[in-house]
Every structure is written in structure tokens, then in C-alpha cells.
């Protein structure tokens, strides 16, 4: 049954997923080409100085894309279910309501991973060629909050779509917007290093929010 859900979700979202993959890869390629261009036209010493002392990071172009990806993927996955009133049917599958929704979210997480990893890996590979290990460490702690924001945005969007009452939707939207803003503070690289474990834990907990919305949806609250 789980495999069927995975297959159904793939059929439904593959077009949007392919578009998002193109956009994610496009941004990654742009960032890499931009880095090459900067290296061709500027002294590497200047680039390293700009990175170390002014916080220049070539991958910063990618910052908001995981957020957008998470939102669009959740919309692609759950909006058709709601518009076509298929979600109620899915919730009556014999595997149990929570497991059905969890399987849907699992598909979303897998698809997101398959969007973020192909975009991030080339950027990391290029960074290894141009910069020392300190840069790679900073890149990891700087870009992880963006990925977490994408995952949390996906969970909140799914919850908003599954939620049955407008008042609850508004409350969820406010909480989502206010929390996700905190993932994009404009400061020096590695700024999130000390709070990263808490952000990871919180993002993991957001998995339960769409499950709550689906319970309320089924009960008609």
C-alpha cells in the first residue's frame, strides 16, 4: 500500500518536481558559473579576503530557493487532493489515517531530498576545488538552515492545505511565516552554528503538524 502511495504521488507531482529540479539545478549552475566568472576576473586573494572578512559566499544565490521549493512541492502534492476531494478517500485506506498522511509526507521529503542534493552536491564539489576546508564547514552550517526552512515550509504548507477551518489556517500561516523568517537572518557565515541542533529538532517536530491537521480534517473540525 505504501508503495502505491509513493507511485501515486510520483505520478501526480513529477511534472512540478521536474520543473523544481530544473530551477534548483539552474540556480546551482548559475552560482557555479558566477564563481568561475568572479575567479576569472578577480584575484583569488581578493575573493578569499572577501569571504573571510566580509562574508562573501558564492552559494548565497540559493538561499531562498529551498523555501520556495518546499511550498510549491506541498501545493503540488496536496492542493489537487483537496480540490478534487480525493483526500477523504485516501484517509479511508485500510493502512490507517496517520500512516497514509505520513506516507504522503514521506514522499514529499524524499522528493525534496532529490531536489536539494543534486543542487548542493555540485556547489560543494566546486567549493572544494576553490576554497579550503574552512569554507566547506562554513558552507554546511550556513546552508543547513535554508534546507531546514524548506522542509518546515513544506510541512506548514501541507498542514495549511489539510486544515479544514479558516481560522486555524490563518493561525498556522502566521506561525509559519513568523518562524521561517528566523531562518534568514542577515549576518556573517556560520552564524547559525550554535542554534543548529535546536533548529533541526524543531524542523523534525513540524512533521506532526500536518498529521494534526489531517486528524482535524477527517473529523470535520
Amino acid at each position, binding site marked *: 500500500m505504501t508503495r502505491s502511495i509513493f507511485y501515486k504521488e510520483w505520478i501526480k507531482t513529477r511534472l512540478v518536481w521536474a520543473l523544481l529540479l530544473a530551477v534548483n539545478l539552474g540556480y546551482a549552475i548559475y552560482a557555479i558559473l558566477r564563481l568561475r566568472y568572479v575567479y576569472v576576473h578577480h584575484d583569488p586573494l581578493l575573493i578569499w579576503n572577501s569571504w*573571510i572578512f566580509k562574508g562573501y559566499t558564492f552559494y548565497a544565490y540559493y538561499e531562498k530557493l529551498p523555501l520556495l521549493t518546499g511550498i510549491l512541492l506541498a501545493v503540488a502534492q496536496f492542493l489537487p487532493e483537496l480540490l478534487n476531494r480525493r483526500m477523504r478517500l485516501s484517509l479511508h485506506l485500510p493502512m490507517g489515517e*496517520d500512516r497514509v498522511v505520513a506516507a504522503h509526507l514521506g514522499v514529499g521529503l524524499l522528493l525534496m531530498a532529490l531536489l536539494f542534493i543534486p543542487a548542493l552536491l555540485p556547489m560543494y564539489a566546486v567549493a572544494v576545488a576553490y576554497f579550503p576546508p574552512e569554507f566547506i564547514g562554513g558552507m554546511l552550517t550556513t546552508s543547513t538552515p535554508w534546507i531546514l526552512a524548506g522542509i518546515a515550509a513544506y510541512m506548514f504548507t501541507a498542514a495549511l492545505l489539510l486544515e479544514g477551518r479558516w481560522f486555524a489556517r490563518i493561525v498556522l500561516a502566521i506561525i509559519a511565516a513568523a518562524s521561517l523568517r528566523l531562518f534568514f537572518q542577515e549576518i556573517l557565515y*556560520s552564524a547559525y552554528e550554535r542554534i543548529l541542533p535546536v533548529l533541526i529538532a524543531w524542523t523534525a517536530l513540524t512533521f506532526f503538524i500536518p*498529521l*494534526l491537521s489531517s486528524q482535524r480534517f477527517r473529523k470535520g473540525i
Partner: protein
Amino acid sequence: MKSIRFTALITLALTALVLFAHYGPEAWWMLFSESHRSPFINYSCISDDFVVSRVGEDGLIYESTKGEELDRAQAEALLPLFNASQLVQEGRMPTEIKGVNIDLSRLRHERSFLRLKPEEIDSSIVNLRPLFDNGTGRVELEEPDDFLRLGKSAEFIKAKGNSLDKGKSALFTDALNEAGFVFPASLVASNPSTRKAYDEGVYALDSEGKLFRIRLFAEEARIERVADSMSDADRDAFAAINVAFMSVQEQSNGRIRLLFLDEKGGVWLLVGKEYHPVRLPLGSYKPSEDDLMIRGDMLNYMATASGEGFVECIAFDRDFNLLDRYEEELPKDRDGLAAALADVIFPFALEFDSGKSSYLGFHVQKGSILSLPFYLVLALIVWGIRRARAVAK
């Protein structure tokens, strides 16, 4: 099913609470905070007293610490070394102060200015720094094409090609080992700027807490164990200090060479060719929260610490003997009725970016104990209204 519901509700409730603690006070203080400009304080080598200038309703007000109001001309005359250009233009510049001939070029040479902010102390900047060659024969400092990493050994990483310069790395690792440096380095400091009067090089504490000065001179490694240049008394005193932070100084006269903090937040300077350690007896200064400024001229040095609600100044002679001290309590930007109400409305306030570090963190400020009765009364009112509505139905 119940555990999912419980976990989700707890997650949402805690998130809402954290967001309220963060955005609530932020919005409150956007609305109610006031700006208070800290006074500018200088030490007068004429009156041997501090001159305080503060912004009043009709412009700058100058006064002595005894409350005597001064006009601008009087204040400038009391601070001739600070206002030299103006006094020279007006023909009021003394040629001698306290037996010292005032020569304008020497005056410029002897001026020093040091500043330390909390975010410099707690910074995420990586441990890669340029090591300038002081023996190139050029007037201006030239940027090297590599960066020094001091870890388990000395490594020079070339920016072009992102490769290790094995020869230079081995040269410095060997020279450091020979000088008694025990790897890995525990603390490293340098000034990466080329816009400075001269280059002090890199200062590094080894794993045993010994301080070394590392320089490159005509492609040669020059390593100096700082304690070796100190007097016996200074060496013993310095060995007892646990250095927690260092800031390399390159003032035009080269007197103050290193500003450092000990593990208790005490402020120290290493002064002169013999690296004489000088402790600045600041009482209120907290390095993680307050700003520090040190200024020097031909006759005096002055250290100013300023933070939320206070400014503290200490004046020294050229040999860092304490001359005078001035402290003033200042109105806080977040004070008065607004602060009292904020403490009740927000049982705790949470900031992620304190502005005092380049890292984000959880900076919690507790509110008032009155928050509890406030929210109890509020809950009772809501309960009462809901009950009244239910009865009416």
C-alpha cells in the same frame, strides 16, 4: 493517534510561545524605546580633569566633572592635543604643556586609537590570516598570496589554486618548533589590514599558553617568544594570566602592541619593546556586552568603557599610572514605565541576534514576577466572559 496530536499541539504551542517572546518585545521596543546618546568624555592635560560634552537641546554642551559649564572655546583650550588643528588655526595652541614641547608632527605620531566591540570577541571569522612580509623593501605593505593556518602545524594555503605551500609551511613549522612553540595553537590574532602604520605580525598562544610573535621578514621566519623580551617581574606576572582574547594593535608610535582580555574579562595591554603588561582597572566593563575605546596622545592615555546605562573613563599618564577616573550612569534606551510594563506583559523576552556576537543564540531576558498574577487575572477575565456567554445561551 493521541500522541501525534499531543506532539503537534505541544510543538505549535511552544513555537507560538517562542515567537511571542521574540516578536512581542521586538515590536514593543520599536514603539517605545528612546535613544540616549552617550556623552563624549576627554581628559584634559591642562585642568587635569575630564571634560564632558553631551548633546543638549541647543547643541553640544561642555562641562567639567564639577558641573561647571564651559563654552566651546574654553573646552577646546582645555583639550589642546585633541583640538590641535583648530587651536593652531586660531593661534591659541600652546607650544609647551607640562614641560613637553608640542610639536605637531610628533603629536600626530603619538596619537593612538584602539577600539574593541563585543562582536569582535565572539566572532565566527575563520582561522586563516595573511602574514605580511616586512622585508620586501617596499614602503607599503603588500598582501601575500597565501593565508596562514595555525593548527597542528603552520600551514600556508595559496588562494590561487587552493594549494598548500609545503616549503613555506615546513619553514614556519620548523622555526616555531625550534622556538619552543608547542602545537596546536590555542589562540591566534593578527590585523589583516594593509592600511596600518606598520605590521606587528601574528601573535599566537601555543597549547601550553605561551605567547609567541610570528613574523615574515624577507622570506625568513622570525619567531619571538614574547616572555623572553620581558623583564623578570613582568614575565612572572604574565605567566599567571590566562589570555582569553587578543587584538593586535599597530599604532603609529608602536607603543601599545597587543590588547588582550584575561579569562575574567580583565583588560590588559602589552606596551613597548619589553611587552610590559598593563592592566586597565575598569570596574564596570563586561567584554561580552560593552564597548571599549582607548585613546592616547603625547601626554596621556584614556580608556572609555560604555554600555547600556553607563560610561566609565580612566585616565593615565604616559607610563600608565592612573590619574583619574570618571563614571556616569546614563538613562537606558529601554527604561521607565515602558520597561516596567514590558516586564509584566512579557514573562521572558528572547533574542536570537544580540548584536554582541556574530553567532545567533538564545538570549533570554526574564520579566517580572508580576507576569504570573497578570496572566492569571487575564485568564480569569476570559474564562468569565466565556462562562457569561454560555449562561446567556
